[in-house]
């Protein structure tokens, strides 16, 4: 499959469909995200589809900021695509200007990530056969479990720094009266409650935050449970469809009608 992907990317770059392609590349013993352009096409040999998770949506956002008028392609798995769909809703990125090269995840990656949909839906092209994801049942824990976990937080802001959906220019977690600064343990559970609220109905459960948390707090499981409840209340799932809007971010038509908005 890797060769087919290499061919495709080379072809797209050569006939100038995109100026740069963000994929994973081997760097000695590690696999890291890398931007292929026509200048470094020879590195394509080092392209790798190893199943390591990096916040590709966040990286493409940063690249776009430096090269606003350039067109880019990006390797997406199910979760990256969902990130981009959400980011499109907030005008952070325009999916039409992005070439999505989909890679469907393998069975064991799907199981490792407990992913319900380990495949891409709206990618321009996708490789690898689709594996049916499993909907893992939500694990509910009581308050003392969570307080013990939150008490370990060393305030590294990693959960915020790695999440592609955390795009604010100023973070309310740094508001002194909300979360005291310069203290360990962090004011809990307010630090984690605030972030849980920001992600309610937005988090696509990719698990990047859980993997980067030095205190081993099972954040993804918490956000999954919240999303589950969110779906029961509003019947809305994030990362599914560009047109759908988050229930807390608009007024229903009949409300607008009634109040002349």
């Amino acid at each position, binding site marked *: 499959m890797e060769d087919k992907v290499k061919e495709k990317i080379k072809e797209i770059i050569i006939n100038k469909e995109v100026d740069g392609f963000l994929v994973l590349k081997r760097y000695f013993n590690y696999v890291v995200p890398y931007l292929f352009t026509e200048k470094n096409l020879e590195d394509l040999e080092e392209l790798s589809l190893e199943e390591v998770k990096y916040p590709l949506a966040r990286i493409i956002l940063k690249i776009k900021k430096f090269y606003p008028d350039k067109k880019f392609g990006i390797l997406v798995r199910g979760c990256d695509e969902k990130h981009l769909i959400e980011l499109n809703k907030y005008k952070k990125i325009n999916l039409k200007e992005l070439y999505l090269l989909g890679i469907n995840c393998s069975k064991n990656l799907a199981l490792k990530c407990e992913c319900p949909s380990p495949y891409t839906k709206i990618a321009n092209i996708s490789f690898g056969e689709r594996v049916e994801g499993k909907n893992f049942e939500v694990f509910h824990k009581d308050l003392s479990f969570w307080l013990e976990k939150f008490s370990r937080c060393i305030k590294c802001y990693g959960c915020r720094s790695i999440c592609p959906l955390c795009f604010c220019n*100023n*973070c309310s977690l740094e508001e002194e009266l909300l979360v005291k600064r310069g203290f360990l343990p962090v004011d809990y559970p307010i630090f984690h409650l605030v972030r849980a609220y920001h992600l309610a109905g937005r988090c696509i459960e990719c698990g990047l935050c859980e993997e980067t948390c030095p205190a081993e707090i099972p954040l993804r499981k918490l956000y999954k449970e919240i999303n589950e409840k969110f779906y029961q209340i509003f019947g809305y799932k994030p990362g599914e469809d560009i047109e759908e809007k988050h229930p807390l971010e608009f007024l229903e038509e009949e409300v607008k009608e009634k*109040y002349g908005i």
Partner: protein
Amino acid sequence: MKIKERVGVFICHCGTNIAGKVDIKNLIQKNSDKENLFFFDYPYFCSQPGQALIKEKINQLNLTRIVVAACSPSLHEKTFHKVAQEAGINPYLVSCANIREQCSWVTEDKEEATEKAEKIIFSHINRVIYQEPLFVKEVEITPRVLVIGGGISGIEAALKIAHAGKEVYLVEKEPSIGGHMAKLDKTFPTLDCASCILTPKMVEVRENKNIKLLTYSEVEEVSGFVGNFEAKIRKKARSVNLLKCTGCGICINKCPIKVDSEFDMGLSKRKAIYIPFPQAVPNAPVIDRKNCLWFTKNKCGLCKKFCPFSAIDYDMQDEIIVEKFGAIIVATGFSLFDPELIYQYGYKRFPNVFTSLEIERLLSPTGPTLGEIVLKNGEIPKEVAIIHCVGSRDENYKPYCSAICCLYSLKLSYLIKEKTKANIYNFYIDLRLTRKGGEEFYNRVLEEGVEFIRGKPANIKMQDDKLVVECEDTLLGKIRRVKVDMVILSPAICPEKSTPFLSRILGLSLSQDGFFQEKHPKLAPASTMVEGIYIAGCCQGPKDIPESVAQAGLAAAEAISLIDCKKIEISPVVAEINEDYCSGCCICVNLCPYNALEYDSEKNKVKLTQEKCFGCGVCVSACFAGALSLKNYREQEILAQIEGIL
């Protein structure tokens, strides 16, 4: 906690209302050692000496923040703001702690009340430290009023404003002003002729130089805020030059096309070029471009050929007028409920089922039958049934009572009885004759022999070309079938078709039944939630002509008083945006009920028009990045208040 500001805390005894339960002396003594915190108490701080004491302490100890612990802020917040201002402190550096209605009056135990009062006071001390000085902003007011709708309400309002010497734009969708009242024959209960009392006012509108009359025109867009509205008005092409036309009517009778006349409710015909009704103001024809041969098939052109004053101009285009206004009065009237929706009543199925407005046209001397009440086949009816509450007080259609049908049904009964001597049966649920002189009119009609049957007709059938009205007479307790020649339906008064569109462009909210929502049903019936926009007439709800005129007068008064104060103070408690924090995600834009936020695509930021903001704070609590904050209710102020109170 180290406090940098010098905070003065003034605890009011309020006689025994507070001091009775809250041990103020011990509370002050307990906190006397705190740095930069000065406690004072007095029996009545709202009194003159009380206020003087505050001012004196402010100057003496050069305090920078004030907390007044007394009654509810809704009573004396303004008073204490004024006190601070006079003592040289920005009024918004004062915080009122409610330790009466929400503490001493609602707590039994003294000790609990004191402890609760202390917590409330300290929560306000925390809050006041974070409060920032705010300054009232003043906005110039454009001395011009826009009146939408040229019915009796619109006319009345426009005249009152014009007499006060202010410039008025009166915009009417139809070719002539006059509205529904122009269609009526007589008005109850005095039976004086509608056009006799309306036409002089219409002429006055045309003559008054302060009124700019825009007929056959519609308002398309309104932006801006109180005192500074900007309206875009589309003046549809009349194809007749008003200055040249003398109203001689040659073009009308030359025109070969005949179509149903809307003014006569389709009961008569009118030409493609027509004057809606004789007393129309402006008294000039208009070309109905949908039916005129020149515009549909590029043929004919007779009217232009025969017009002695060459007033016809086919290539006249719609004209867009953009103008600034200080206030807007909406007087768009109402629309009648379509009885066809109630299948059983057979409107349009049976020939001789009329609506009351159609009968008004029949009664009118300028109407299709020049005042004669005749059936469709020309005969004079002998038996006439008038059915009240068609669509009104009916949860399938309109739950509310349309207020005027009972009285005008009596009027119709009287007039028809007088003209045709027919037997008149009124089918009613309750007779609501609340208007002045209503009861006497009812007795007069009874004397005339009009019969009143208490029961809502179930349905109307056709039996050998007679109409049979079936209903259960609730007084006699049995089903009655009354054979009549003619049935008159009194349809419900419904919101005008353009109401939803206007509410959208003006930002007005609608009440449950679809009419414009007044600011307060009793105290501000002509104002709306939007500053500077007023409503009059049936667009606010069913009412008769005297009520509409009264409301129009009130709306005019409001508009005049708004314009007369030249400048208006904008409340400083509005949102503000921090450009660097905003990342352009637009969560706030779709939540603002006043469209005060828009997305600016080049800067990828959100732009806030502070004048449109009412300070509800919905956007502030939706913004994760803290880019939006609401003055006087900033996140830090509330968070600090929570810290103090728990």
